[in-house]
């Protein structure tokens, strides 16, 4: 285990934030509003709290295991083979989700920006650019995150402030007018939007100041929740619930329908879309690095350059697999195995690690005495 402690507090904050905010932000408002209507923002808030707890769980796991990296923790707890299998599952799950996200990203780009460029070509370009970044060290990745954080959120918030001008905030009413089941089924989508928190496993071992990091983690989740909340409220306020249900990507259409009288720029979406590319790209690169690191550690490869090459074709194939946009969404949200794996990885696995770790400690103690 390398004893490099290179990442500062701000690095942690930005990495968590940019890794979580991804393409989900485009489609998520539709799914949630479709289910719970004007209560979408409440669901977002609750999801933020849940994610915060899950992240706290991850932190506790890391702390109990002396901040080693994920593969080491898993292999120490469950033995070499089982731990390895878990680690690979983790990596594959992340790659699967991020690849489908990539397809969604490409579809958005194809619809709004590059109409005649083939899907395969956009995919290849994105993957190759990502690979170039992943081949660097983790320090480079975090620096990249720190820079793109500003590139992402400054334009995003600027645009969102302008959209608020045409918004009708009474659309947020009525409050709490749905069946409890609807809240549950809609929270599925919003929780997927928060996908990417596993990056904490990668980043925490490299922190300079580990004692403070629990607070920083909470802060970054609060920031992301706030961002999602703003987007959700604005989509509702601008489009009302009946129109938001129809639109495939309400967030983009919202930016499209932005009109600022007196400005010289008329079609904002071109500029904004260019910035939105970062939103996906950061999620992709971080998850890619995370999976690459796991594959490297499990198979004892020399460095991440090799493992990233191994993952490249998988991303490409998974991203190309869906026939159309409808199948893409079914694969993302509609399949039970994916859901189960997600629950296993983010809820059951950390708890298992903690339990097994405790047992072993006790076992070790009784042997000694």
């Amino acid at each position, binding site marked *: 285990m390398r004893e490099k402690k290179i990442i500062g507090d701000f690095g942690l904050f930005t990495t968590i934030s940019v890794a979580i905010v991804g393409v989900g932000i485009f489609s998520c408002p539709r799914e949630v509003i479709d289910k719970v209507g004007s209560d979408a923002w409440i669901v977002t808030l609750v999801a933020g709290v849940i994610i915060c707890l899950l992240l706290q769980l991850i932190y506790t796991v890391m702390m109990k295991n002396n901040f080693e990296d994920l593969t080491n923790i898993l292999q120490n707890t469950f033995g070499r083979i089982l731990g390895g299998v878990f680690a690979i599952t983790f990596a594959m799950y992340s790659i699967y989700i991020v690849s489908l996200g990539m397809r969604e990203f490409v579809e958005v780009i194809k619809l709004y920006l*590059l109409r*005649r460029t083939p899907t395969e070509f956009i995919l290849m370009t994105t993957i190759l650019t990502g690979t170039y970044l992943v081949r660097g060290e983790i320090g480079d990745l975090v620096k990249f995150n720190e820079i793109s954080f500003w590139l992402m959120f400054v334009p995003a918030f600027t645009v969102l402030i302008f959209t608020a001008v045409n918004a009708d905030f*009474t*659309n947020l009413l*009525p409050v709490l*007018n749905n069946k409890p089941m609807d809240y549950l089924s809609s929270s599925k989508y919003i929780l997927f939007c928060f996908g990417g928190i596993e990056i904490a496993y990668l980043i925490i071992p490299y922190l300079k100041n580990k004692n403070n990091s629990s607070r920083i983690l909470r802060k970054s989740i609060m920031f992301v929740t706030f961002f999602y909340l703003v987007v959700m409220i604005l989509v509702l306020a601008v489009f*009302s619930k*009946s129109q938001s249900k*129809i639109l495939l990507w309400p967030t983009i259409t919202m930016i499209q*329908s932005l009109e600022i009288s007196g400005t010289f720029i008329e079609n904002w979406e071109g500029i904004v879309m260019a910035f939105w590319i970062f939103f996906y790209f950061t999620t992709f690169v971080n998850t890619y690095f995370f999976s690459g690191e796991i594959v490297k550690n499990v198979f004892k490869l020399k460095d991440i350059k090799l493992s990233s090459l191994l993952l490249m074709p998988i991303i490409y194939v998974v991203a190309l697999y869906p026939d159309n946009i409808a199948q893409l969404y079914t694969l993302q949200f509609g399949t039970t195995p994916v859901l189960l794996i997600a629950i296993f990885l983010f809820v059951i696995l950390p708890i298992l690690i903690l339990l097994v770790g405790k047992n072993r400690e006790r076992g070790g103690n009784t042997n000694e005495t």
Partner: protein
Amino acid sequence: MLLSGCWDKVEIDRRNFISTIAIDVGEDIGKEKELKKLNLVEPSSGINIKKINVTYGFPDMSTVGAEKSGSAQEKYINTQAYSMEDAYSEAMAKSSRDIYLGHTKLLILSSDILNHKDTVKEIVDYLQRSPSINRMIQVVVSDGPAEDYLKFKPETENNTQYYISGLMDNSDRNSRIMSMNLNELLILLSENGNALLPMISLDNERKELVLSGAAIIEDYELKGVFSPIQLINIQLLSGKFKAGKKAIYLDGHPIDYLIDGYHRKIRVVQEGNKLVINVDIKLEGQIGGYYVGKKILDEGELQKIQNAFNSSISEDLRKAMELAIKEYGIDPFGVREHIEKFNPSLWNKIEKDWKTKYKESSVNVTVDTKIRRIGATQ
């Protein structure tokens, strides 16, 4: 990798920037019913039917330049097609340049096409689905064929699109004119299929193009027309009023009341089995003109005028609202949204038979006018 963006390159001088889209009925619109029976198996028979007539207007770029002043002359491409997408490809085939819809400013729907519900639904879906269409396009309904309006040359501007857009931009200062953009229209249609659209008409003798009130759209169909005066009332009731005037006759002379402050409150209660809609309107403004020699700088006198306005405006508004509710069954006032948002328990009860409940509801309008200023004379 650096050149990967070049796949989609289009040179700017190879583009036609469409500024106006005018949609008319085509010659085969009568076959709409027949077409409904068509299904997947016989695709080719539906292709050659000219259901709609779409005209794309675009400024002639050769007349724009540093030395030439003002807006450009307009040119047109006219197409006959069975759908909007077909019209687009048809226009492509007729043009030497790439047709670009991203800068469209105005959409003119002819009143005839609004009598064909299914075709309208097809058009609306196209506008909603197509990512390249700007959602801030202004939408108007034309009285008669839309194409004529596009070819009309107004006195004050070089092309129609500038003229109509200019008129609609004035809606901030005068509520006799309303403006509606595609985004608002789509939201209204998706909410309950009801909308009011600004209507334009052409006076051929006087060579004038005027905004003549509002077309009433209900369930994607043209149901009637409001005159500009009625439109002010509707705007006042619906909370969208910006600025305008009302007048009454007092002692045989008109008094103009220029409204510059406005607040509306709506309350819906259920009394027995009937809905009662209460609208409270507060107005602030000044007197615009009366009669030489009449003094109104007197509290009692002003109170008298205010009371006269109160009763006149509230009566006016009540009639307008009842007309809209009883005769057209439309809801431009947002009554439905109001109940849904602020009284969800009532909404859950009446949602099923909302239409009949709404038609049977009674209306109370109370108006409170305040005359703040009386101009520069007594």
